[in-house]
């Protein structure tokens, strides 16, 4: 009798767990922008804008206007405030500014792809310091940890991440990498996009592997989620397998380009993927890594919301690539 009861309870548990398992593909949200900038305001005509960050300290939106070699600062309703920088290699000048990150003291860190350096500005955009990156190969994604250290993808081909001080000295490396037969390209093969949350946890998504990881503030791995259940990720891998035979060459590393951007708020991880029409953003529970739903950041008939920031409490800010506009959505 007890055995039968135990079996019944077991079945109930299995049934409940299955019935609460959300089908992400059927759980879609379509967002319509409530504000935009980039078409009418002559001061903010973007050219190939890359990377957008909402600053929770000064409540402003920072955009890397990469093609114009400047940073544009907007208020939280996307009104133009200021622009900073022009093309060059000198202090305060930019050559392909990309990643943006803010320290606790609101120092603004700008990664420059072509100058291969990081410049650090105060909140008035006066140059505070800057340094040349210690070696070639570093990529745009950067963030600041709870101890004000700068996090970048490592280029030593042995680790996932490097932590740097404000002078550019490498303080340490961490994170297990995927092995690659061409070892000197391991840094490209293991490239990630990443963000810290308010508690100092780190979330990263691999550009070339269908994997999402969470590290705690002591750099210990908390969880690893496989993202190959996402149709777009599957399609990108399939496309890559076809391309590698047709288009690969000795001087070329073909990226799988599985992910576009990652963002974190108090509860969720937002992961933008390629390979699906409308370029949806998949939403995961921050504590468990469980997928919950997907969000489409729409804009007219044809749109590519390539970069975004969900860290504001009520709003989403996104760069739409095709029309080169910055958009604001309600969460």
């Amino acid at each position: 009798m007890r055995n039968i009861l135990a079996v019944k309870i077991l079945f109930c548990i299995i049934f409940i767990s299955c019935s609460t398992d959300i089908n992400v593909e059927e759980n879609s949200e379509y967002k319509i922008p409530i504000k935009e900038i980039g078409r009418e305001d002559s001061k903010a005509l973007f050219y190939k804008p890359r990377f957008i960050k909402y600053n929770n300290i000064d409540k402003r939106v920072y955009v890397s206007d990469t093609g114009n070699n400047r940073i544009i600062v907007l208020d939280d309703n996307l009104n133009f405030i200021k622009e900073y920088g022009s093309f060059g290699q000198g202090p305060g000048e930019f050559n392909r500014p990309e990643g943006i990150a803010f320290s606790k003291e609101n120092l603004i860190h700008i990664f420059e792809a072509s100058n291969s350096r990081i410049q650090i500005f105060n909140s008035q955009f006066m140059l505070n310091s800057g340094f040349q990156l210690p070696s070639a190969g570093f990529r745009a994604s950067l963030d600041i940890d709870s101890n004000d250290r700068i996090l970048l993808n490592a280029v030593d081909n042995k680790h996932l991440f490097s932590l740097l001080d404000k002078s550019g000295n490498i303080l340490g490396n961490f994170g297990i990498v995927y092995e690659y037969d061409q070892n000197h390209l391991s840094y490209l093969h293991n490239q990630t996009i990443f963000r810290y949350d308010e508690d100092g946890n780190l979330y990263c998504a691999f550009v070339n592997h269908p994997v999402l990881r969470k590290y705690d503030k002591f750099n210990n791995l908390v969880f690893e989620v496989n993202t190959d259940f996402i149709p777009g990720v599957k399609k990108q891998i399939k496309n890559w397998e076809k391309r590698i035979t047709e288009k690969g060459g000795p001087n070329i590393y073909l990226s799988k380009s599985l992910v576009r951007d990652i963002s974190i708020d108090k509860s969720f991880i937002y992961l933008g993927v390629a390979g699906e029409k409308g370029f949806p953003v998949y939403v995961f529970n921050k504590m468990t890594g469980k997928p919950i739903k997907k969000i489409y950041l729409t804009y007219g008939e044809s749109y590519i919301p390539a970069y975004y920031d969900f860290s504001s409490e009520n709003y989403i800010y996104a760069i739409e690539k095709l029309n080169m506009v910055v958009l604001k959505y309600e969460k």
Partner: protein
Amino acid sequence: MFKKITLVFVLGAILLTFYSFAIAESCGESASCGASSISCNCSEGGECSKDGDSINGWAINCYCDDGSWEGGFCIPAPE
């Protein structure tokens, strides 16, 4: 009459050829890395633009209407 119809057909064929090339050009991009070249085309047609960021590709980085995204880097020679 026969000549007019033939002329219309010939002109139509020429226009169609130019239109096809224009579509292919607008959707195909290529870049070179040393001796190798890399290209991408949007298989389902539509928008395809070549540009890049240092995360997904500098040599080429195409975005198509069907959501596919092709990226590639020119890489340094092994030491």
